[in-house]
């Protein structure tokens, strides 16, 4: 049995349904689980090994998570362009570029995540996996047919390819488009060709120095 290391089950909030679901999922997946997280009354996150991505999904399907909700990816690198609000006449801003992954941890810059739900019971699980250096993850479109389009979208937006996908054509972008728009280092051109008109608003408002915690009453 995998130790539920980062599972927080506080005394006041208990969620027996999700705790049982998490124990069932991690038990069935065994060694493939890298980390997991349970937020009572909220959701379950399980991070698995990239090589076990497809078997994870097959296991979930056999456990009754028969409804495919979505699949996508996250680029955890902070954007070198910030919010695109920099004044071009000022010197470049120093930004903290350390990569910090979210719930259930991680080791890589890119993570693929997907969500599966037990229909009618509305117990869902969000699974994540680290994308290896090869930028390739096994395709799950043979297990859940609906993942086909989501993988195509993720491929064009993040440049992550899916092994065994029948047809990774672009969905939205022209075929000769270069770059992957949802990567953080892909600049949002609208903010590059013309300075952000809201720059003046970034000046501290009166009373903002107390880090914005004053209540609107």
């Amino acid at each position, binding site marked *: 049995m995998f130790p539920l290391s980062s599972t927080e089950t506080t005394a006041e909030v208990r969620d027996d349904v999700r705790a049982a679901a998490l124990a069932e999922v991690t038990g069935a997946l065994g060694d493939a689980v890298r980390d997991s997280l349970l937020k009572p009354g909220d959701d379950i996150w399980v991070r698995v090994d990239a090589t076990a991505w497809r078997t994870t999904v097959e296991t979930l399907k056999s456990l009754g998570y028969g409804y*495919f909700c*979505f699949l996508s990816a996250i680029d955890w690198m902070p954007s070198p362009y910030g919010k695109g609000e920099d004044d071009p006449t000022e010197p470049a801003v120093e930004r903290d570029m350390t990569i910090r992954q979210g*719930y259930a941890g991680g080791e890589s810059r890119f993570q693929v*995540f997907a969500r599966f739900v037990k229909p*009618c019971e509305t117990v869902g699980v*969000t699974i994540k996996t680290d994308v290896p250096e090869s930028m390739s993850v096994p395709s799950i479109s043979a297990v*859940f047919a609906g993942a086909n389009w989501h993988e195509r979208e993720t491929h064009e937006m993040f440049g992550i390819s899916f092994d065994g996908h029948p047809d990774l054509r672009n969905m939205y972008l022209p075929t000769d488009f270069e770059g992957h728009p949802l990567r953080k280092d892909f600049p949002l051109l609208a903010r590059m060709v013309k300075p952000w008109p809201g720059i003046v608003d970034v000046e501290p408002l009166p009373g903002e120095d107390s880090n914005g915690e004053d209540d609107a009453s």
Partner: protein
Amino acid sequence: MTMLGDRQQLSYIAAQAADARVNVELETEGMTLNIGPQHPATHGTLRIVARLDGEQVVWAEPVAGYMHRGYEKLTEVRTFPQVTALINRIDWLGSFANEVPFILAAEKLMGVEAPPRAQHIRTILFELSRIANVSLFLGDLGVQLGAVTPVFFAFRDREYVLNLIEAATGGRFHPNFDRIGGLKDDLPAGFIDETRTVMVKLRRFCDEIESLLFGNEIFQSRTRGVGVIPRDVALSYGLSGANLRASGVEWDLRRDQDLPMAWNKADWKVWTHPDGDSFARCWVRLQEVRESTKIVDQLLDTIPAGPVMTKVPKIIKVPEGEAWVSTENPLGEMGYYVVSKGDLGPFRVKIRSASFNNISIVPWVLRGVYVPDIITILASLYFILGDIDR
């Protein structure tokens, strides 16, 4: 009797030869039919490429992306309150319903909850946008089948609902009314009485549509047994909303999910249909409009007193974390996976829109159907282009 002239003989032979050629050519010839991107039956700029064998579709492939606006990227350079103005434009017929799951996700991360009065009014506006959205579907359904009258009824009665939404929010199409921690404003005077009258009109509209369309023999023969989607296929493609319930899955996120909304304070029914065909999908939607009018009527009676806005900071910073919230929108399950790094704006927003999954089943469901059924099946799956392309 005169002999045939040389010319006549030659033309006779040429005709015979042409006939023979035609007979040969008729034997096998596939054809590619291109529908859209500007075909009126596609509700926007969806293109369908279908390979035909005679009148039958061998394979069909939807081509989306003519209206991709890149909202997932744009949210990364917006603050949390600014995002609602963008996501209003996803499903533009039921705009208010788009805002709710995002605001709920932000509230979940911040640990705030809207006051009961705001939750109630949110639910009422949510159901009103469902009625505005689905009533247009019911009218449009007739047009797809060649009946023009229902769409006039639909536009007439949807106007009443849009007037209500305008009265409450100031915007007919893009309310941008939902705020983190509550609502922008309270309901205007006279809204409750007016809504009650409109709900009666809408129920009458449902009866009209039912007798005009659903009882019509042509409508039934065009939709019954056409485009059947079995339960397991629907689930594996991630179909949701009425499309899933028409395949016999009794699952409604309004009822089965614990959200700070007021659906559980009303008494209503989740309709399903065992057939999974085009007729079932249309029929389930008709019943849902009726149920929505019932929900609105009951909630109007029980609006609690109190503020519509809880205390939130003037400058909203959302704590670090990840949240997933989805609601049962007019088109199906719509959800937002919001990742925050503790800044003014989201780090990443994954928009899970219903039509994207609902349309991904098109290659499967169109295989083997006849050409006229393409239009009825697409109409019954019901999609909004902004909801596919985002």
